[in-house]
């Protein structure tokens, strides 16, 4: 019995099949794998409101009200606007201190707040288009600031500096407020 076993040990384990098995598994995982990256618009929600605390006062000029109704019509500070204009309007509003210095627009980019309000019936698609424009305006501003300060694009700058030391982000903090939607009709 013992001798027999010893004899077997001398014979090699056949390894030719191993590659085939590994190949099969490999092909299975190759097929199953989807190397897709999730993309989307990142947002930071505000913490839940404290019922004992009054919301901080905001000066009228620092607030940009964007209203979008269910038909996709846009009202910016009581004036109708089209979706193509939004990016420019937001840029003018946020960066007012460095541009036109209009007394009706924001004091400085740090205190500027963009408020987006929709109807409950507004399609999600329209809301995202809107948000996209606002984010685009901020991205543009940050990029410009980064170019003039450091001579590199904001994307590159962000990769080099830790989030806490990001002066550009601090300069243009992207205050977007999502207001409670109107019940609508």
């Amino acid at each position: 019995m013992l001798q027999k076993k010893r004899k077997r040990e001398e014979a090699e384990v056949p390894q030719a099949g191993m590659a085939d098995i590994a190949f099969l598994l490999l092909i299975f995982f190759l097929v199953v794998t989807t190397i897709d990256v999730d993309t989307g618009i990142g947002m930071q929600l505000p913490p839940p409101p404290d019922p004992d605390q009054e919301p901080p006062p905001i000066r009228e000029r620092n607030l940009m009200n964007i209203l979008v109704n269910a038909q996709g019509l846009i009202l910016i500070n009581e004036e109708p606007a089209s979706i193509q204009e939004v990016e420019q309007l937001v840029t003018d509003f946020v960066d007012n201190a460095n541009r036109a210095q209009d007394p009706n627009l924001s004091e400085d980019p740090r205190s500027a707040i963009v408020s987006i309000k929709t109807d409950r019936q507004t399609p999600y698609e329209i809301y995202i288009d809107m948000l996209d424009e606002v984010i685009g305006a901020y991205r543009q501003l940050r990029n410009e600031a980064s170019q003039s300060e450091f001579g590199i694009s904001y994307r590159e700058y962000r990769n080099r500096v830790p989030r806490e030391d990001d002066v550009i982000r601090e300069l243009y903090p992207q205050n977007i407020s999502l207001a409670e939607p109107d019940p609508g009709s």
Partner: protein
Amino acid sequence: MSKFQKKQAGTKQQVPTAAMPDIIFMLLIFFMVVTVLREVELQVRVDFTRADNIEKIEQKRLVSYIYIGPEILGGGQYGDTRIQIDDALIDDVYAIRRLMYDKLMEEPRLIVSLRVDQRSEMGVVYDVQEELREAGTLRINYSTLRGDQAPM
């Protein structure tokens, strides 16, 4: 050592295939690690909307998904807008609070990815967001495709 050399000299020269399984195994392990098997069965339809100013989520392990869209009834029929988390449809919006809070306790750096059908109404999305605020999961991501990307 000398024994080894002798052996080699004795055999006929061949392309060594002994290392091949190792290479294959390395590839295999790579793909096994990279693979994220689809863990949920979608019960709602989600047609992604498009946007240009988007960012990538690098750490997929931190992401938890919430699906919002019309319920798939089968036979090409769609029902009312429903919310799906993991494998279950949520009937009560307030249940999201507890669910997400539990997830947040497990992973403090949780990112909630909202996968919303483009024709859904904002009311539902807002209600979900309010629940997320209450749960304390404040990092969210509106899942969208790149503007020029072909639909999935």
